Each structure stands twice: as structure tokens, then as C-alpha cells.
């Protein structure tokens, strides 16, 4: 019978199944960071348990770490969380890329970089953006700390088999439209809970022509559509990205692995429980104007009005969101002025993201009312960008060039947007207070954020790029 990649990977990982129970699934890779792991390790110690497979775990520090003046951490509570992870990794024998390690970075950026992320794996991490790794054709999902402890002790999880969903993007993307615009448009069109109970597979021509970095941006935000995981069937693009990476097999073993990885792709004629479709040509550069990722529009639109919604609760949700965001109904999006730009996060802080932003700002200056920072997704991304001279492009334009980490995506460190100020951000969440109490976040692609940094207001990057030609 024709099967989806979701069913294939799931079935390969069942350790035990019984009617009336979730399946006991084996976990191939467990990624850890400082914020959601300390209580799990403490649980192990209290129960006298050990880590079953430290060799299948990999840890780094990303959420809390400062992005300047390393390695000083001013916040004593944050510092304790960092030192706790160091101690836990040492005690339980887990490999750690610590704050000063050359491999350090956002956990979802370094997994793929190091080749730890591979097709067909089950991958978990105490972080909802674990869905990023699905870009390789893996089942990758975020878990809570109790589940982190469960995986540490048993290398398994009890999981009810999710429903399968296809999200098909028909046709080719238009000029200046990026992966970020595609995923924001999907979430806006179908809503932030459309994926609940599902694992989503992204398919279609637009996906096939994307690079791995673009695919990671798409899968990263699956959780913002409510799907626990999102993935893409492996193809030659996947194989070529993985070839030669540190943790993948080498030589003949790689060719064998590649053959097996390609065989995981969804079979012709396989059926999904739910199918969603969007046409690439209806997507333009996208930004959010509200307080969840589905509250967004194409850049040529205006802030919606209550009249645009039929349902009373949607009208009220709009009013609440606009009150928080300090926006008036009907305002053209391109007239909204900003004070901050953040280029970073597990969604958009890979090398190609920095290149896209640098291309837009080259030879120009950040608007005097704007503070703009670039936070590369990893030490490796930072080194590569510096080798290409991207740091100079950003610095000369007036951006700050920082060390890697999650930074202003969730503002757990010192990188905070002040109350009432507005940020053009390449991150993944625009919830109230996400970038600091009272902060106002607008999500968009790196190129769009770069264009806003220069003009001081939201700007259609296609116009900027056309002016360059």
C-alpha cells in the first residue's frame, strides 16, 4: 500500500504497540538546551536514574546566552542555568557545545550543520521549533521537560499516532517572494490551529525548488500552524546538503544511506487525512500586524478592519490585537514606522538569510530612528558570513553584528525591545510581550526586515530590489 513518509518513519520506530495505548516510539536524536532541561536532569538524580543513550544526545546553550561581551553573563539566574547544563552534561556524559565552543549556536541551526539531523530519524528537543529538522524528512517535534526526562531515561516516548496532512504549494514563487512569505501566508490562510493533531508534509513545485535552508524556514514554523511536526520528503537537494557533514556516514556508506533516505519519500498515490492547498502566485512578501502568526497580510494590504470579519469573537480578537500593537484599522502596512530590526532566530539566521538581508542593505544606511541587530544562528554561520565579508556590509550600514543565540526572538537575554516600540523581526512569534514586555513584533523575511531597516517603515522589498536592477 502507498504510504506517506510520516507513516514510514513512524512504523520504523515503534518499539511496542498495543490496542488502547499510544505507541512506544524510539527516539534517534535528543537535542538539549539550558532552559528546558535542568528539571529533567534533577528528576533523574532524585530517582537515581541514568541517561540510557548519552551518545544519542547533543546539547548546546542558546536561549539565554548574551550576544555581546562574551563570556560575561550579568544575570545570576541565567548564569546558574548555563552552569547547570555544563554540570549535567559532564555528570551524564553528554556532548556539549558550550558558550565558547566553535560549534555553538541555536540548537535547530547546529543540528543540521553538524549532520546530526538526518532523513528518517525521530528527533526531539524541549523546544517547539524542533519541527525545523523535518526539512530533512525526519519526524522532529518539541516536547515538554517531563518528556525530556522520559527520553533521557528510556530513549523512547509514548505517542499517539498523529493524523497526516499535506500542505501543497502549487506553482512557482513570484519575484522577491521567499520561504518565510510562504509559511506566513499558509498560517494566515489556514489559521494557527489548523495543524493540531497532525504531522504536516509540505509538497509541490515551490518546495522542490527550495534549498535546504529555505525548507528549514518552512518546517520551522509548522508549530505556528498548530502542527507538532512538519516535514519534506528527501530528494537530491537533501542528499547534497548532507554529503560531507561531520556526523553523516562517509564514502560508500553515505551512498547506501542516501539510497535508503530517498526511499522514505512519500509514495505516489499515498493518502493524507487532511489536504490543504495554496497557489504560489497568490503569495506576496508578507508581514504580520497582530499578536499571533496568523494575523498577517501581503505587504500591499492595509491593517484589517473589524468589518472584514463576520464572527463577533474574531472582531474582538482583532480589536484586542490592534490595541496591543498600537495600530489603527485600515492603515496601509507600508506607512507603519519601526524602531527596531532583528535579523536572527532559528527561522531565519542561516547564511542564506544573512546574504539576502545584506544584498538589500549594501551601500545604504540604517534609518536614524532604527536600531538594527544581526544575530547569526550559530558560530559557524558567523564565521562563514565573516569570510564572505557580510559583517562589514552590516556594520557599514549601521547594524550591530552579534554573537549567536536565540536573542531577541524571545528576549530571555539582554536583547529586548522596549515597551511600546515596534520591531521588524525575522523570528517566528509575535505574541504579546514576546520580545519584551509591551514590545510590538512584526514577523517577516530577512530581505523585508532589511528593507524596513533602511526606510524606517515597512517596505515592499520587491520595489527596493527592482530599483537595484
Amino acid at each position: 500500500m502507498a504510504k506517506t513518509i510520516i507513516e514510514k518513519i513512524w512504523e520504523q520506530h515503534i518499539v511496542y504497540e498495543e490496542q488502547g495505548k499510544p505507541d512506544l516510539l524510539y527516539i534517534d536524536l535528543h537535542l538539549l538546551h539550558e532552559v528546558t532541561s535542568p528539571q529533567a536532569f534533577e528528576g533523574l538524580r532524585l530517582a537515581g536514574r541514568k541517561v540510557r543513550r548519552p551518545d544519542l544526545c547533543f546539547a548546546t546553550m542558546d536561549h539565554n546566552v548574551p550576544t555581546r561581551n562574551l563570556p560575561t553573563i550579568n544575570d545570576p539566574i541565567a548564569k546558574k542555568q548555563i552552569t547547570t547544563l555544563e554540570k549535567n552534561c559532564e555528570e551524564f556524559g553528554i556532548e556539549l557545545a558550550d558558550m565558547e565552543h566553535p560549534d555553538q549556536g541555536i540548537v535547530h541551526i547546529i543540528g543540521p550543520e553538524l549532520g546530526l539531523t538526518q532523513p528518517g530519524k525521530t528527533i526531539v528537543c524541549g523546544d517547539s521549533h524542533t519541527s525545523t529538522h523535518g526539512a530533512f524528512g525526519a519526524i522532529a517535534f518539541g516536547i515538554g521537560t517531563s518528556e525530556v526526562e522520559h527520553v533521557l531515561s528510556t530513549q523512547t516516548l509514548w505517542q499517539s499516532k498523529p493524523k497526516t496532512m499535506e500542505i501543497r504549494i502549487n506553482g512557482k514563487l513570484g519575484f522577491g517572494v521567499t520561504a518565510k512569505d510562504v509559511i506566513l501566508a499558509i498560517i494566515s490562510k489556514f489559521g494557527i490551529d489548523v495543524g493540531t493533531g497532525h504531522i504536516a508534509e509540505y509538497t509541490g513545485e515551490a518546495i522542490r525548488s527550495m534549498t535546504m535552508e529555505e525548507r528549514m524556514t518552512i518546517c520551522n514554523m509548522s508549530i505556528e500552524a498548530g502542527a507538532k511536526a512538519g516535514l519534506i520528503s528527501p530528494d537530491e537537494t537533501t542528499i547534497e546538503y548532507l554529503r560531507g557533514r561531520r556526523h553523516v556516514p562517509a564514502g560508500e556508506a553515505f551512498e547506501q544511506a542516501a539510497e535508503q533516505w530517498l526511499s522514505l519519500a512519500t509514495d505516489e498515490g499515498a493518502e493524507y487525512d487532511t489536504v490543504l492547498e495554496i497557489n504560489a502566485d497568490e503569495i506576496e512578501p508578507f508581514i504580520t500586524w497582530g499578536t499571533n502568526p496568523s494575523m498577517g497580510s501581503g505587504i500591499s494590504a492595509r491593517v484589517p478592519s473589524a468589518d472584514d470579519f463576520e464572527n463577533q469573537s474574531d472582531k474582538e480578537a482583532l480589536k484586542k490585537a490592534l490595541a496591543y500593537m498600537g495600530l489603527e484599522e485600515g492603515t496601509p502596512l507600508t506607512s507603519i514606522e519601526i524602531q527596531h530590526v532583528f535579523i536572527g532566530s532559528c527561522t531565519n539566521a542561516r547564511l542564506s538569510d544573512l546574504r539576502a538581508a545584506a544584498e538589500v542593505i549594501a551601500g545604504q544606511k540604517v534609518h536614524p530612528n532604527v536600531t538594527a541587530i544581526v544575530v547569526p544562528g550559530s558560530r559557524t554561520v558567523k564565521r562563514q558570513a565573516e569570510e564572505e565579508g557580510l559583517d562589514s556590509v552590516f556594520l557599514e550600514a549601521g547594524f550591530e553584528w552579534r554573537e549567536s543565540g536565540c536573542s531577541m526572538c524571545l528576549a530571555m537575554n539582554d536583547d529586548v525591545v522596549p515597551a511600546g516600540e515596534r520591531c521588524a523581526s525575522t523570528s517566528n512569534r509575535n505574541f504579546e510581550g514576546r520580545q519584551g514586555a509591551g514590545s510590538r513584533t512584526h514577523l517577516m523575511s530577512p530581505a523585508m526586515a532589511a528593507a524596513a531597516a533602511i526606510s524606517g517603515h515597512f517596505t515592499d522589498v520587491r520595489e527596493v530590489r527592482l530599483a537595484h536592477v
Partner: protein
Amino acid sequence: MKPINEVRSVMTPLNRKNIDTDQIISKEFLKRIERTGFGKYLFYHWRFQADGTENKEFVLNDDRFKDSKILVAHDNFGCGSSREHAPWAILDYGFEVVIAPSFADIFHNNCFKNGILPIRLRVEEIEELLSKGQSAPHALEVNLEEQTVKGEEGKTYSFEIDPYYKQMLLNGWDEISLTFQYEKHIAAYEKQHA
């Protein structure tokens, strides 16, 4: 984990959709390395003004709901981040049951690991409860064994729950200890895939 079966209390109506875990527990409180003590930070930026004083408009600051153990909210409760600090804060504050039309997957899962009962009712039922609970304090009686929620006038709503998680909550089982009973299956899987 504390077993849970019958819970009786006034319900706290929180009539909002898509309440994300950033609102339930804000990131500045995620730096602690303990599982306890998060209750005072629950819905922090809705409960308190920027100057630290209470926001009198917010339902948790209404004394009539002070001893409530049952939170009733709208669609897609707990969306966003996987932070288990969210259910820890809910439990530490004193809520044992959360009732909503739908929950985000990771949050829903996290509830079961902490002895919190997440109950899904139909949207119309939730709206009925919210409307009653907002006009006057309304007591509910939750019974997990029977899978029912009873209102003051004796109106009974029934709910579905996965039998595995029902047993887990009723008995307060530690899931890791249960999984250790399957050790031979895990070892066999590892041998086969080595």
C-alpha cells in the same frame, strides 16, 4: 504525581482564544531550575500593570475566583512554546482542571505529565459555561472516572479522554516507571537497529 478524580470549585472564566504559553508564563520566569514556585508568575503581564500593581480588570484578580481550581478558556489553549513551565505555573497557582474547546498538542501532553486534567468540550458548551461564569460565580463538579462536568443547575456535560492518560491521571502514575516495564522491548529494538 498527585492522582486526580473529583474536582469541585467555582470556575474561572477566561474568555479568550489562542492563549499562548508566552502569556501563561512569560520568558523572564523561565530561568529557574526548579519545577515549583511558578504560580505567582502565571499570566503575569495580564495580572499586573507595568508598575507592578494588580490589573483589577483581569479575572484572576477578582476575589470571587480566588479559590478556583477550574479554568475555562476558549479555543486552542496553550499554543506556541513547548515550555512545561506553563502547566507548572497553572498547577502551582491552584488550577487542577483546564476546560476548553481545543488545546495545542504539546501543552495538552504536558498536562498529563503533571496531574492536570485538560477537558475538551464542544464550542457551544464552552460558550454556555463562559457566559454563566462571567455573569455570576458558577461552581462546577468534575468527575474524571465518569468523564463528566456538572454545572450548578445539574446540567451535565460529558467529555472524551484517551483511556491511557485517564488511567495515568486517576492513579497518579509516574510514566517513566511504567516505561521501564518495557525495557526488554527497548533493548530488543536497539539490538535490531544497532
